[in-house]
């Protein structure tokens, strides 16, 4: 406990630089590699333009089609709930906005703390539900890998430590805040090298899909 402030300053200082550098190097390396490699040349004559259908699919694939919803309503509903809760906590909590402003110089209006708190609590419960579902559903359980559990753990820890720090449930507070920042840094470091990259690549993949549809002249 006596080194709580040193720990906090380490997470806010050198460790933050390291995490941000690994995140930026890793993410850009992966994205540029994906984009430079591109797709194999399609020699077939295009039937239609591929750009707009690509963007359309980026949007339309965000909402699950009725078939998917019917087959796996839990995945769709709980998946949506916790993703939205996570994004609200990440992007609309005032201290997070101040962090982004401090690093990138851009900012936007935030939400009142109790609202963010509510969404954080919902996110935590949803995340627990996803883990229980993953471990009890026979198919999900079989296809889950160590990486899946690792990614779930770090996402959960980021939200949990944030919740604990906000409610000041761990003393002293510098320790609570330091733990939250460290978890977020581990999240950033893991992001480019795990399935967390989907935060960025999901949209690229959707665009490629839509573009392929557009080129073939089918509905995107």
């Amino acid at each position: 406990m006596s080194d709580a402030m040193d720990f906090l300053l380490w997470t806010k200082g050198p460790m933050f630089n390291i995490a941000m550098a690994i995140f930026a190097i890793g993410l850009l390396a992966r994205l540029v590699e994906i984009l430079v490699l591109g797709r194999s040349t399609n020699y077939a004559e295009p039937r239609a333009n591929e750009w707009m259908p690509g963007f359309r699919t980026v949007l339309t694939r965000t909402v699950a089609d009725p078939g998917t919803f019917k087959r796996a309503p839990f995945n769709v509903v709980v998946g949506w709930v916790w993703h939205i809760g996570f994004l609200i906590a990440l992007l609309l909590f005032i201290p997070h906005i101040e962090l982004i402003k401090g690093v990138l110089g851009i900012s936007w209006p935030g939400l009142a703390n109790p609202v963010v708190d509510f969404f954080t609590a919902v996110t935590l419960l949803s995340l627990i539900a996803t883990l229980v579902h993953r471990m009890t559903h026979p198919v999900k359980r079989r296809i889950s890998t160590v990486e899946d559990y690792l990614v779930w753990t770090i996402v959960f820890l980021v939200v949990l430590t944030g919740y604990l720090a906000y409610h000041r449930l761990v003393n002293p507070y510098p320790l609570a805040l330091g733990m939250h920042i460290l978890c977020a840094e581990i999240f950033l470091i893991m992001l480019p090298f795990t399935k967390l990259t989907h935060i960025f690549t999901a949209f690229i993949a959707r665009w490629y899909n839509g573009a392929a549809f557009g080129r073939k002249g089918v509905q995107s």
Partner: protein
Amino acid sequence: MATPKRPDKTLGESLRAHGLSRRGFLKLCAATASMMALPASMVPRIAAALEQAKRPSVIWLSFQECTGCTESLTRSHAPTLENLILDMVSLDYHHTLQAASGDAAEAARMTAMEANAGEYLVVVDGSIPGPDANPGFSTVAGHSNYDILMETVEHAAAVIAVGTCAAFGGLPQAKPNPTGAMSVMDLVKDKPVINVSGCPPVPMVITGVLAHYLTFGALPELDGYGRPMAFFGQSIHDRCYRRPFYDKGLFAETFDDRGAQEGWCLYRLGCKGPTTYNACATMKWNSGTSWPIEAGHPCLGCSEPSFWDGGSFYEPVSVPLTANARTLLTAGAAGAVVGGTVAAVAKHRVKKADANRQPVTIEELEKKL
């Protein structure tokens, strides 16, 4: 010259000599109990203890400091509770307050140490150049701060480090720490050390600790940093009267906007209240008149370790210390080069394989069979 021997008067006698009535004395005890967050049932015990207590000898050592801590202690409005309690101790050595100077002052220290060996309290303000630092960085009467500290604490009952410099190194220890400054607890390992941090500390906290020692003959319950829980147990944020504005998401964003005028939360202006543990929010300053946040300025976090190196006073707690867009862009550019190179190498390999391709026809394969 200060009194060399430990005075024989009890506190009760001493206070009566100051004209304090029995009612006034009990009020003092009740205030002491409430200040230290003790139950009201403790008041009679405090009264009995203080009545009989002997004024302990106190040796106050000033090292790399600005005298702000002494100012804090003495600038209280007479006759306050703080002054009364200060009268309770026999302050045998204190650069700023003692009448003696030169050899006579040093002799007072030595005499007090001999007469009260094992029982005197040492109060330290200011940090100390460590044993590996140049001893000439800070000296008193030709002796290094380190030597004087070690010599004085050897037979002390306990050491009270007053102010953030003595408790954690403070400003002298801020990077690059040119004098190799260390805190009292870095150097004194074999005596109880109690930290009363703050730049300066709230006067009531200094006197409160002394009162606790007189009452119970022991040091109060301490937190992880060796600070009395009664005063440092809660954060500024938790006791701040502006806290409801934080909870509602109402923040001042500049020092002269509507939020500042309405007295909203100062988090976005860099308030370190969330990470700072001190009694300012409850005890306030200048005889309970006001305190920094009430005056419209964010808390600097002066009672915490490394507060000088903890980033700008005007950046919110959540902002990283050194990371900026340039770090991100530079790392991103490096990543793009890595990704581009890997992709280019892969493409080149495919192209090369394509060029060296040796097609085989079905006829050729059939011939081989």
